[in-house]
């Protein structure tokens, strides 16, 4: 087997192992779906009337909201990558892997890939939930598929950040919070829930350049979901080239964190 074939074969085996782990613990899926469904309901019905603006139509807001919630949900799944690695380290499984003649990179690729399998399942549940509260895909089927792929690519990129965090955290307890904390500024200082033009000063600039905003805007656009009438439209290069910017930043994140995580994996010691 060539070295590259061994990387893919090993990654496949590791992906299988991680997916089996989720299948044996269906309650994990419950956690991964119930939480975002609560978010949908809270934003749609609790904040929706207020955020929708004076005279704003809550139905329009819900349509706007869904792409943001989808992207946020799969982004949060990177915390599973963090916890997964922290667990494997604690249980000595990483030591076992490191003592095997297998690809180092595959252990991480297998984990980040498996986490996207989880994301797909979650997206199916979320989409059903969206349809129930009145969200519709307005564009073509192809665009809709591209929309889903857009947020999955971005989530995949974040998963590599999660892998790095999981490998540097000293314990599972720390991993639990370290995996989540950075998610809040990342996903809230963005166009996921509010018009990005409404954010004040520096926050507005951060939101404009936040790759997460780009991923959400691109997906929203591909779904054919418009902002509620009368909302200020975002401007600037990232907003006008949302898909391109989202893809470029995803690739950049992987290019930075894949070598970092792999280098860390080579040296990491089990607790």
């Amino acid at each position: 087997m060539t070295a590259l074939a061994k990387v893919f074969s090993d990654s496949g085996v590791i992906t299988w192992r991680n997916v089996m782990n989720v299948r044996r613990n269906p309650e994990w899926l419950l956690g991964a779906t119930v939480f975002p469904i609560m978010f949908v309901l809270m934003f749609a019905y609790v904040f929706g009337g207020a955020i929708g603006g004076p005279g704003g139509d809550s139905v329009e807001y819900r349509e706007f909201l869904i792409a943001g919630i989808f992207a946020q949900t799969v982004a949060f799944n990177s915390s599973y990558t963090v916890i997964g690695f922290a667990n494997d380290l604690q249980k000595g499984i990483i030591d076992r892997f490191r003592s095997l003649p297998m690809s180092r990179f595959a252990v991480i690729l297998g984990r980040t890939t498996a986490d996207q399998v989880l994301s797909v399942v979650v997206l199916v549940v979320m989409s059903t939930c969206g349809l129930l509260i009145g969200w519709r895909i307005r564009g073509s089927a192809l665009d809709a598929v591209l929309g889903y792929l857009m947020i999955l690519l971005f989530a995949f990129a974040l998963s590599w950040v999660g892998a790095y965090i999981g490998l540097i955290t000293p314990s599972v307890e720390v991993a639990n919070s370290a995996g989540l904390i950075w998610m809040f500024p990342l996903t809230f200082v963005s166009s996921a829930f509010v018009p990005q033009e409404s954010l004040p000063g520096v926050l507005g600039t951060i939101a404009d350049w936040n790759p997460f905003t780009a991923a959400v805007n691109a997906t929203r656009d591909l779904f054919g979901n418009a902002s509620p009438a009368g909302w200020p439209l975002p401007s600037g290069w990232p907003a006008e080239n949302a898909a391109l910017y989202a893809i470029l930043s995803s690739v950049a994140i992987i290019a930075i964190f894949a070598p970092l995580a792999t280098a860390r994996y080579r040296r990491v010691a089990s607790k």
Partner: protein
Amino acid sequence: MSDTDKGVAVRARGLVKHYGTTRALDGVDLEIPTGQVLGLLGPNGAGKTTTVRILTTLLLPDSGEAEVAGHDVLTDPDGVRRSIGLSGQYAAVDENLTGFENLYLVARLYGQRKPQARKRSRELLARFRLDEAADRPAKGYSGGMRRRLDLAGALVAEPSVVVLDEPTTGLDPRGRIEMWEVIEQLVATGATVLLTTQYLEEADRLADSVVVIDRGKVIARGTPDELKNQIGGERLELVVAAAEEVPLAVRVLAEVGSGEPAADERSRRVEVLVDTGTKALVEALRRLDALDVVVQDAALHRPTLDDVFLSLTGHGTTEEVPS
């Protein structure tokens, strides 16, 4: 490996490793002839696990060199990984996978094709008496079953060198004896084994030779028998029926023994070191009988490795060394 090295499966020279300012390993040398079991013995924090981690490529030494199955751990770590099986201190079992899936996973990662991986996994499950539990998640396994599964994982690729890091720590006595039987079977197949343990009884039973380390340094090496001989011969121990006969017994034992007898009036126990083994025992009993001293209990003890350890380090095997 050059021809003169043919018979050596594991060789380490001058291994040094620091953790911060702590010198975890301070120049450890060891050698294991092919097909033999080396017991690496020492208290917690002595440097056993650090040595194992270096030899299994999990950790780089600060200095020193090591070769395992002909592969240098520094320049050819993948060669080492292909030749070894590691069973760690904590059973590295994925508890959400079944016993079969755990072994299949490892077999696939060693590069075995699916049918071969399946066959090998089933074989090992049967050999380690896990075939009945094979298709249940490992979550429900007992501590002993997990250790056996972990050891089976180390043997998937039929490695020429097997490294067992404290394989019985934390097991109950039954689990420990089962594990020993499994390790003895493994040795019978001709594998070279590096076994770390805190239990002297374990090294005594399983190891051909022993290296004792303490605070990162080798403080003794040899066969278990050689080590025991280092602290002299056997200990003759008698219990007499009446307390007033203790002084008499002390006098007799002083004559047949090789040292100063020790006596305890309350338990009526008298003991002395002897060089001549059973001869001394028979002689002592004959003389006491002639003096009409009734002996309730008589025994000849070979020194245990615990005695060896105590005399080498000045502290027992259970003392915690700050890490």
